[in-house]
């Protein structure tokens, strides 16, 4: 781990919802160019962690360092401007905008000439989106919406993409495609932080993984090691 530069460093992160203490001091590191996975059951605080990194939740404590800069007090739009982005759970495409508009909105902060090039790249990754670029995003199927959500995130030219449950509710055949895309993105030099319940698939493609339970990280290690870990096997791989 040491030889790689750390892109995202989360230190002692806490999240509260009113009186509920959802994330209780989580720390982890994401090295540049790697795929890191956080696995854990529903309600373990994975989504809250990602939201807290993006500053979408108000009550939080702790330090988030991205690219050497403390971003824990920055607004969400400022964080996106620094090259960190999140593909939210449940896709959340804008159903009333067209596919193209959704993608362009992903490039909201950019004014450069290369938007078109990136658009072509997204279409190359997901040819289905090109076919449907003038359709309202609400009419897409679940798998297509997930592709759109990933494509939209790519449009901001992020260095690090966080994905929250990208395989949720998709047909197994689509899930495979999504994981293939994630691997392809790493080849393109992107750094990826994955949050998944589909632990088996996620561990297979990642470098390093963390296990979260009731707001805390209880286990960490190389993904391959975790795949063979008895505790992980019992609780998450079935």
């Amino acid at each position, binding site marked *: 781990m040491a030889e790689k530069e750390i892109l995202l460093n989360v230190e002692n992160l806490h999240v509260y919802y009113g009186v509920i203490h959802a994330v209780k001091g989580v720390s982890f590191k994401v090295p540049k160019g790697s795929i890191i996975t956080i696995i854990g059951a529903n309600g373990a605080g994975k989504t809250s962690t990602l939201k807290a990194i993006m500053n979408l939740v108000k009550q939080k404590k702790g330090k988030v360092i991205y690219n050497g800069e403390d971003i824990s007090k920055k607004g969400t739009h400022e964080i996106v401007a620094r090259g960190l982005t999140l593909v939210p759970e449940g896709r959340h495409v804008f159903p009333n905008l067209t596919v193209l508009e959704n993608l362009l909105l992903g490039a*909201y902060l950019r004014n450069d000439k290369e938007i078109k090039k990136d658009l072509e790249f997204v279409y190359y990754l997901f040819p289905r989106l090109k076919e449907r670029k003038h359709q309202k995003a609400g009419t897409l199927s679940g798998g297509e919406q997930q592709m759109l959500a990933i494509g939209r995130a790519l449009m901001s030219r992020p260095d690090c993409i966080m994905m929250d449950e990208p395989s949720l509710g998709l047909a197994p055949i689509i899930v495979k495609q999504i994981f293939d895309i994630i691997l392809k993105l790493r080849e393109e030099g992107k750094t990826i932080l994955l949050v998944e319940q589909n632990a088996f698939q996620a561990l297979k493609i990642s470098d390093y993984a963390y296990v979260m339970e009731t707001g805390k990280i209880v286990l960490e290690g190389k993904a391959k090691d975790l795949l063979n870990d008895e505790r992980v096997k019992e609780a998450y791989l079935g």
Partner: protein
Amino acid sequence: MDLSFIAQEIINGISLGALYALIAVGYTMVYGVIRLINFAHGDIMMVGCFIAYFLLLKLKLPWPLALILSAILTGFVGVLVDRIAYKPLRDRGAARIINLITAVGVSFFLESLFVVVLGGVPRAFPVPDIFNKEFCIGNVYISMATIATIIIGLICVSILFYIVYKTKIGMAMRAISVDFETTKLMGVNVDRIISFTFFLGSALAAISGFMWAIQFPSIDPYMGIIPGVKAFVAAVFGGIGSVIGAVVGGLIIGILEIFIVGFLPDLAQYRDALIFLILIFTLLVKPTGLFGEKLEEKV
């Protein structure tokens, strides 16, 4: 009943309807972006009127300057109202009905504040001379004020259309209306966009207030209620959230009102009640209004 009477009624109806439409567009804009029925919109219009009144009377500004300046100042009043009253609710993710109640509170606050500061006695709005001219085609009269309302209204609505459908900001506005959090993830500074929306909506209210005052030149702190309510009916009738709907709704309500008074004089006193009845029936037949998009809860 002769033809020129009908023509005159139609002209009057359009004149009133254009006013309603202009106010309704402001309502609809704010609703379209943050799903808040800004109950205080009529009162913002009143604020705009009083600002224009002081600019014209005390600073003796020429009217185009007074119009623009009042629009800008009122725009900032709108932003201020949002920051103080609505934004804290939004940040907490309060229920929509809480927003509505707060808007009712803001409405009462603005009215009473102006009563406390300026008194409740109506004042005469200094109508610039140019608007008092009248044209006459056959037996049909058209006032300059009417023409100005229609022209300025068209300009405002066109600008608005351009902003909402052709610019990046407009795209962000439409995105906010469906999904707040995800819009933030796109790198959009959501607070700024919402402030901008309030600015636009309130500036529109001020412009429509100015137009209202040159046609009905008596202004008082409660003047915003009736046009506010009617424009609101127009916005809902047309489908709240839809700019086209607001324009069409405004025109229909204006024409209907004039027609009721003109053709059914017995019911003239009941015109406000009838307007509301129409609203109620519209909502029953098509709960989202004529052009409103369907917002169905997913099961």
